């Protein structure tokens, strides 16, 4: 599952509408509770434990990909 798909699932967006620039400023549902949901969903989707600092860094899709790569996560591109 691509990070775009996870973000789409959490915020109810079609995967095709999610891109690197999609962020907590462009998506209304991406508020603080939405962010917690996103972090939990990313952890579940990739079986990875993200730290609070990771969570704070992931404010857009490009940053999510950066953090996931740092944590050794791979996904089909």
């Amino acid at each position, binding site marked *: 599952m691509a990070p775009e*798909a996870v973000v789409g*699932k959490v915020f109810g967006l079609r*995967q095709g509408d999610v891109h690197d620039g999609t962020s907590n400023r462009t998506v209304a*549902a991406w508020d603080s509770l939405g962010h*917690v949901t996103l972090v*939990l*969903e990313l952890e579940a989707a990739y079986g990875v434990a993200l*730290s*609070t600092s990771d969570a704070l860094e992931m404010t857009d899709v490009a940053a999510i990909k950066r953090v996931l790569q740092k944590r050794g996560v791979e996904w089909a591109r």
Partner: protein
Amino acid sequence: MPSASSALRTRKPTAPARFSTLLRQLKDAVPEAVAWLLDEEAAARAQWSASELTGLLQDLFTAAEGCLSDAGTSRVLDLVRRYSDVLPGRATADLLATLPLDVTDAGVRDVVRRVLERQPHHAGLLRVACEGAIRSGDGAAAHDLLTRLARADDDLATVRHVHRVRATVPAAGGPTARIALLSSFTVDFLVPYVDLECRALGLTPQIYVTPFNSWTQEVLAEASELRRFDPEIAFLAVSIDDLVPALAGAPPAADLEQAGDAAVERVLSVARAFTTWSGAVLVVHGFHSAYADPLGVLGGRSPSGRGRWLAELNARLSDGLRDLPRTFLLDVQDVLVRRAGGGPHDNPKMRHYASLRLGDRVLGEMARCYARYIAPLKGLTRKCVVVDLDNTLWGGVVGEDGPQGIQLGDTAPGVEYQDFQRYLAALSARGILLAVNSKNNPDDALEIIRSHEGMVLREDAFSAVRVNWRPKPENMVSIAEELNIGLDALVFLDDSPEERALMRESLPQVLTPELPTDPALYRQTVEALPQLQTLVVTETDRTRVEQYRARRQREQARDGAASLEEFLHSLEITVEIARADDSTLPRVHQLFQRTNQFNLTTRRHELDQLAAWARDPGWRLYTVRSRDRFGDHGLVAVGLVRLDRGAWVIDSFVMSCRVISYGVETALLATVCEAAAAAGAGAVIGEFVETRKNLPARDFYARHGFTADGGADGVTRWTRSLADGAVRRPPWVALVVADGA
């Protein structure tokens, strides 16, 4: 890249394994590749195995994730439409969920619907179907699909999505439920789960969450939002870790003792304050801590061990709450121990980062637990559980395996059925009736029920028994008629998916839950049904099974009597009429909540309001008890009368159906008329509001010489002038009227 695709077209049919490679090579020309591929597929489909087809669809899926043109999408849809019965369901659903479908198109929605029939729990496809229902303005279908989606995938992301989307759909109808969540930590994530459970019960919830950690102020302040919201039920979730932050470390025993006292007193004082101004049911979380005992294993030998300390706090909390009206302790540790599904109950990161004291994997279970209070509060408790026999109450088929061949006893296999029967017996002890609806030879089945040593439930445990070869829905209607309760008061438990489907299809009012294939899980499944919970058990509930047995004897007596009048005289009915007091108010309230058929206005008055009227000299709240030579009916009817100047007005008149036609209702009406005449009133006015269910009450006032003379807003007013005398007491009833009534 037309050249590539035309080159491919000239090749002979390609082995399926090659498709993925080809597809990748054609990545830039995806639409054409897909078109070609599908033509090939159409030709070669018959020779492909399911796994090969799955592989093909997965390749398409990958292509779709990248970019599939409109043309490509419509080709895929065409393929699915034509071959939906042979394509692998899961892979097809995956594919459809990913395509950029135009869900406003009726044809597209039809394809989605057909695949969904084969993959009813596919979350991705359910999302697509929801969007389709919403965009086409089908609100009822949208609500149903949203509930199914959250059931199919109950993780936080999906359940929040469902909640968010539901807010955009017109209200589903159904009774509202005003629910307040008060907490010392973040409970916002619980809201979508509680909403979901309410929707599954057919309710439309309004949920108020007190601002972060302001549970005390909201209860105590005179003009709080909570008071304005005026909840019907409130959940108070206070974490001991918030009240005693020192729990993270190892405080001295004396400090811990003192902090524990203060914590219990603080929660109790807020609960007490709440009950002084609110008539709502209050559910208070018991304490649990995220921190394990820092003593480690030594805690099990120490007088100040954490487990023991918490158990004592919870015991004191329970004692204190029992003194308050309408207040319940929710044993959170028990919920955590029993919850289905995995995952930790505490997520330390989220506890620190988001003040979550209940981990995300606990939220669903906690909300289901809440529903067990909400359902009975909203009058959704069912009155009778109807069970199948073979493979439901025992293992095997008695007609084939014989009485010795069935599985039922105190060892496995067979003990799981006994466990299940014991739980049904416990339900019966708190007033829920049991009945049998089975396709069997009556002699075979009754032999087991009467004499098999493994049976827990004997014949007298069942208030109605249908063992025959008739369709089960037909039996169900006849059981409802015999017990004189509505079909919507029944639960049907049957191991057969076909029988369950037939029952849901024929009688949707009957609650027919899914039963797991493993009989060892039957008990848990039934334990989890919110519709079998009760908030109050009255004396009437405890003796209900006995009452229905007496009723059967009465009916046998009627069959033997020469005339109805003779039969009624032979019953030796005594009716006692009194004014409601504290000891009878819970039963009075229960009658108001539960009675649908003989209910003249179906006004669901709340307990507090009823208590106030019972004391108000401007009102009379009558209670009616009845008994006869076969048994005691208990408190069976209630009349609420407003003593207006000149005329007494019967606001409500509610009677349990099991005493209909014995003259009990006439006795009460006569008493009201006599009291009104004695007080100098000129007339008695009865109000009537027609509902779908109160047909048995429709001619009540007409039968007793009242005349309809207008009304408004669905309320008909029936008047009887007392100049014509009071309503005549039924001659076969010995009527005892208490002083003041």
